[in-house]
């Protein structure tokens, strides 16, 4: 297994990809990156000239969902292009090699192409007990990530687990799992593509942006690309008009649900989640969760398993009150206590006045003068 040196056009030609398909791919990438149309030519010529950079795809504590998501796209054939735009030297799910040969291939890339290859990481990295909860070829995930990622020219963390630890890191996190940025701090050119899973169109767009402009796209405070994570789901949602009107699904399968009303009352996290889910969509742009009738669970938000659950309620359960008690009940309970306490005090004050009056009457036959003033 050696790193091929042929360019992109040759690789595409071998796969039988026509020029028309290539340009269509470039325009869809420009649209995903929110670039003006004039950049279509820039992207197309840059990709045509590009040498295929080497890519290694590391999988740690994951479900392979991000790899699967990458393979689920067919039209536009994002997978084909991404597979052909880059020379994939290591990807456990896809590679034919296994065992020592596969690990040797990874080692060869790190040794011979240090500072040139792109590392994609999928899955969280366990750090508890010396990282024994995920080992590949006798090495811990933490060691592999440190070794491979610190020698890469760019690191892409795909999916929630690789970004912030995702499901694996969620409470109580028995394996001490962390996302790539926390497990291996100080990585250069790190970009986080959160989401459960990542959207392959976004990942392809990041790679295209890198191949075209030789730099990462504009990032937010979590090092996520703004083109994909800069807008709120709610603002792009096709059910938004129902929200503004005040028409909501009250329970699953009711009249409103059949009519496609807003899922806000069912706990949809669209108003606080950012992602380009509603515009890029999934399965070749077929649909996305809210279109399919299920609320958003904010899967591209920071540590969403812990911070955004319960997924089917507007607000989280208040700690210390059990999961069945809603914030509404607690709030009304607080107010009820205040009203009760006040009522008790009203009774107490009336009693005090009566007792006081009787006491004063007993002491002085005439009412006190000051009361008349």
């Amino acid at each position, binding site marked *: 297994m050696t790193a091929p040196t042929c360019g992109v056009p040759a690789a595409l030609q071998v796969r039988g990809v026509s020029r028309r398909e290539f340009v269509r791919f470039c325009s869809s990438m420009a649209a995903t990156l929110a670039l003006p149309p004039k950049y279509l030519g820039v992207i197309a010529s840059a990709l045509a000239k590009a040498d295929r950079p080497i890519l290694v795809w590391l999988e740690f504590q994951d479900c392979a969902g991000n790899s699967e998501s990458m393979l689920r796209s067919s039209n536009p054939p994002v997978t084909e292009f991404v597979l052909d735009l880059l020379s994939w030297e290591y990807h456990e799910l896809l590679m034919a090699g296994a065992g020592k040969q596969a690990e040797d291939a990874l080692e060869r890339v790190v040794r011979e192409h240090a500072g040139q290859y792109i590392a994609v990481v999928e899955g969280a990295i366990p750090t508890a007990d010396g990282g024994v909860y995920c080992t590949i070829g006798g090495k811990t995930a933490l060691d592999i990530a440190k070794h491979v990622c610190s020698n890469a020219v760019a690191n892409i963390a795909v999916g929630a687990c690789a970004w912030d630890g995702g499901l694996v890191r969620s409470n109580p996190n028995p394996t001490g799992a962390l996302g790539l940025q926390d497990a291996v701090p100080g990585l250069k050119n790190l970009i986080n593509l959160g989401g459960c899973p990542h959207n392959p169109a976004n990942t392809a767009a990041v790679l295209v942006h890198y191949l075209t402009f030789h730099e990462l796209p504009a990032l937010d405070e979590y090092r996520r690309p703004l083109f994909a994570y800069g807008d709120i789901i709610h603002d792009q949602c096709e059910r938004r008009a129902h929200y*503004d009107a*005040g028409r*909501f699904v009250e329970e699953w399968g009711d009249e409103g649900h059949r009519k496609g009303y807003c899922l806000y009352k069912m706990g949809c996290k669209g108003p606080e989640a950012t992602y380009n889910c509603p515009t890029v969509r999934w399965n070749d742009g077929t649909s996305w969760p809210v279109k399919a009738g299920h609320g958003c669970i904010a899967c591209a938000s920071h540590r969403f398993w812990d911070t955004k659950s319960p997924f089917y309620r507007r*607000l989280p359960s208040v700690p210390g009150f059990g999961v069945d008690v809603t914030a509404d009940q607690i709030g009304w309970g*607080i*107010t009820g206590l205040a009203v009760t306490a006040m009522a008790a005090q009203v009774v107490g004050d009336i009693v005090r006045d009566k007792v006081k009056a009787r006491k004063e009457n007993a002491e002085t036959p005439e009412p006190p003068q*000051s009361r008349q003033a």
Partner: protein
Amino acid sequence: MKKSPTHVPPEWQWPAHGQVRIYVWQWPVRAAHWIIFVTIISLSFTGYYMHSPFVTPHGKTAYLMGTMRFVHLLSGFVFLAAVLVRIIWMFIGNRWSRWDQFIPTTKARIKDFLATGRYYGYMSWAPPRHIGHNAIAGFSYAAVYGMAVVEILTGLALLSNVLGNRTLAFFIGWLPRLIDLQWLREIHFLVMFGLWSFFVYHVYMAMLVSVEEENGVMESIFTGYKFLSESELRQAKTEVDGTGNQQLVDHVHRSECGEYHGGDSPPASGM
């Protein structure tokens, strides 16, 4: 006892015999009070609807949630302005609107806190008398301003998320990174009930104090004036003079008090 020129019975005279009228709540204090009152009601109503829409509109052009959100945001910014004015006034206003009325710092205020607590706890017959707030009331208002600040900060953080406004995010962006938006929303919602609970107690306590102290506290939040007996004024004046603070006396000078115009010896009480 002086004879009233209009032959009004002494107990109907205004100010009543033996009392002086004193300007306690300046107009920004009263304005802020009522603006905060109105906006909390409108914020609570629209906010509760935004949390759990309890009305379903009919018609093809309905814009109920949009309207509720608009009113909520508008009220929110008016509320913010009123709270800001009141907080600024805590530093430039008269002695009864200053910050030290809300947080007991002096020995006298702490003593007053305990004395008022004894009255509320049925351990004394009559409440201690005050020109401004009593120490417990003042402290509860400090809690209200605390809640108001929490509501403002969480509200701005939630708004910043919706607007995606860089300037707003620059000022408030630290908060969602510290506490997740979902929990900010929870806090924003629950603190509302804290304000409701305060409201319930506040109205009752104002009624109680108004009846027990007979100082016109209920009317004072409309007019700004409270009523003091001569003996109370003398006592307060001694306290103030003792600390070298002339403000109280100045205010009495300026106030349209019926018979007392300052000076070293208040006139003898009619009673």
